[in-house]
């Protein structure tokens, strides 16, 4: 068999079709590498930027129990970002390079984090809906073809199981509380519902990456299939809470066995993706500030490590 590029690509695809995992040092098509660097780092950036809207309520959490749960959750997101950056780094790019792409606006992150958290109920809504949507996506990704990505996902899914429960419990407490608390919960659902459905990306008809991604098992279901799964699983949960999903067209469709739902405002989606969401600028600015103000700290630690290594070498020589 000749080692032509075509043959290599074919046997690579055969491996994926057989359900084999691809490991970092294996031969892989250049596009596979690039797509993974883009997608995994985008996922990592989302975890890191995602710390900001929730972090906004850490100092104002209403009870000590809620405060430690939220702190632990936001900290987990830092950990998840770290696992994902590590997975990206196996493909031959550094975390610093990835961070610079993010800060230069060249890399994307999930648009959902460009919306503001305006009340404590938003923390509940994010855990319930945003993490709910993320879990749907991530459970699928535990079976993706690239080994380091799949392994990071397994770890992340295991850790995230408490996140959604944490959010739902916040919502439940509010919905069983006073009128003011119920209103707070409803108002949060009103604002987060549609952006959450947008998290699964553009409709299949307009999605440019879907076909290739499914071939490489980066995706096992289409955007619209995942979105439908989100709607189907969330409606009964909203009923249990006694909250109203802000969609007059939402209706059970007996023949499809799914809920029908209204039209998503894709203009809004693209507006936010292109940088004009309510908080795009603040989010990137916060990350840039942390990165720039941390530069001297990172340098100092390296300089100290080098001095220590020299001192050890000298004392060993004597």
């Amino acid at each position, binding site marked *: 068999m000749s080692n032509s590029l075509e043959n290599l690509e074919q046997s690579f695809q055969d491996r994926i079709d057989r359900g084999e995992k691809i490991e970092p040092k294996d031969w892989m098509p250049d596009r596979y590498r690039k797509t993974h660097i883009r997608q995994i780092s985008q996922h990592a950036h989302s975890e890191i930027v995602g710390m900001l809207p929730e972090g906004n309520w850490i100092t104002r959490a*209403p009870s000590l129990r809620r405060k*430690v749960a939220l702190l632990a959750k936001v900290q987990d997101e830092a950990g998840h970002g770290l696992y994902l950056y590590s997975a990206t780094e196996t493909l031959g790019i550094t975390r610093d390079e990835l961070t610079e792409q993010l800060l230069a606006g060249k890399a994307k992150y999930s648009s959902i984090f460009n919306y503001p958290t305006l009340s404590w109920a938003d923390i509940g809504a994010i855990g319930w809906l945003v993490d709910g949507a993320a879990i749907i996506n991530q459970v699928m990704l535990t079976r993706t073809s690239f080994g380091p990505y799949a392994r990071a996902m397994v770890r992340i899914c295991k850790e995230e199981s408490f996140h959604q429960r944490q959010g739902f419990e916040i919502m439940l*407490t509010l919905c069983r509380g006073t009128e003011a608390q119920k209103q707070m919960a409803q108002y949060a659902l009103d604002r987060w519902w549609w952006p959450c459905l947008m998290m699964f990306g553009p409709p299949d008809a307009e999605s440019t990456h879907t076909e290739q991604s499914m071939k490489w098992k980066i995706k096992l279901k289409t955007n619209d299939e995942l979105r439908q799964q989100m709607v189907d699983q969330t409606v009964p949960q909203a009923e249990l809470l006694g909250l109203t999903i802000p969609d007059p067209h939402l209706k059970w469709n007996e023949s499809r066995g799914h809920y029908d739902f209204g039209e998503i405002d894709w203009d809004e989606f693209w507006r936010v993706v292109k940088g004009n969401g309510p908080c795009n600028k603040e989010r990137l600015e916060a990350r840039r500030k942390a990165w720039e103000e*941390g530069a001297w*700290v990172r340098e*100092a*630690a390296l300089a100290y490590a080098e001095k220590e290594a020299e001192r050890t070498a000298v004392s060993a020589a004597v």
Partner: protein
Amino acid sequence: MNDQQALYQYLLLLGDSPMILGHRLSELCGHGPSLETDIALTNISLDLFGQVRNYFQYAAKVQAEGKSEDDIAFLRLAHEHRNVLLTEQPNTDFAHVIGRQMFFDTFHQLLLEALRDSKDEQIAAIAHKSLKEVKYHTRFSSEWVKRLGDGTAESHRRMQDALDHLWPYAGELVQESPLEKQMKQQGIGADLEQIRPLYWERVNAILREATLEVPENSWFQAGGKKGIHTEHLGYILSDLQYMQRAYPNMSW
């Protein structure tokens, strides 16, 4: 103050410093100089809030007025807080964060070691459990003081600036207040007279190894233990208490 009131106040004194410092650290979550450091600082914050909950749950029991840990944490006025002024100092830069932490951790470890022998079994148990956490904090912050002090010219300058700023707040930790004296005499509280020389010895050793100058100033600000605070505390409390004040008497 009867014994029970004194014990209650002493528990506030033990819990308030970790609470305010934990709050300051929690402000940094998502804004650290590297992901790994961000995670580490949040861990310390979580440890401190865990300790706060232990102290305040016990304080609520001692007070016996049917209040909860949250009533104690979120519904006191500024002058009813007994934390030291050091813990209120802002996150000016990473050197300030680390310097503040190093002073507090060094003291905190000595305090907890002493409180393990408290006649009050509950306090002894909390101290025993917390000590494991705080030993790790001490290691973390003292190593970082060395990294920054003996790192680059810039980090050295920043660490020295932070020390110069924090130094006047470093003494209050080991200044015995009347309440602490009373608790010491009852065998419940720690003896700050014994802790003081060890504290300064350890602080000086860390600074020396970090190639930093011990600041000359020998006047120490104090007042936190009796409820007279810096201007920072009011702002901290307006965040901390926001929900409980805006939506009183609700469960969360």
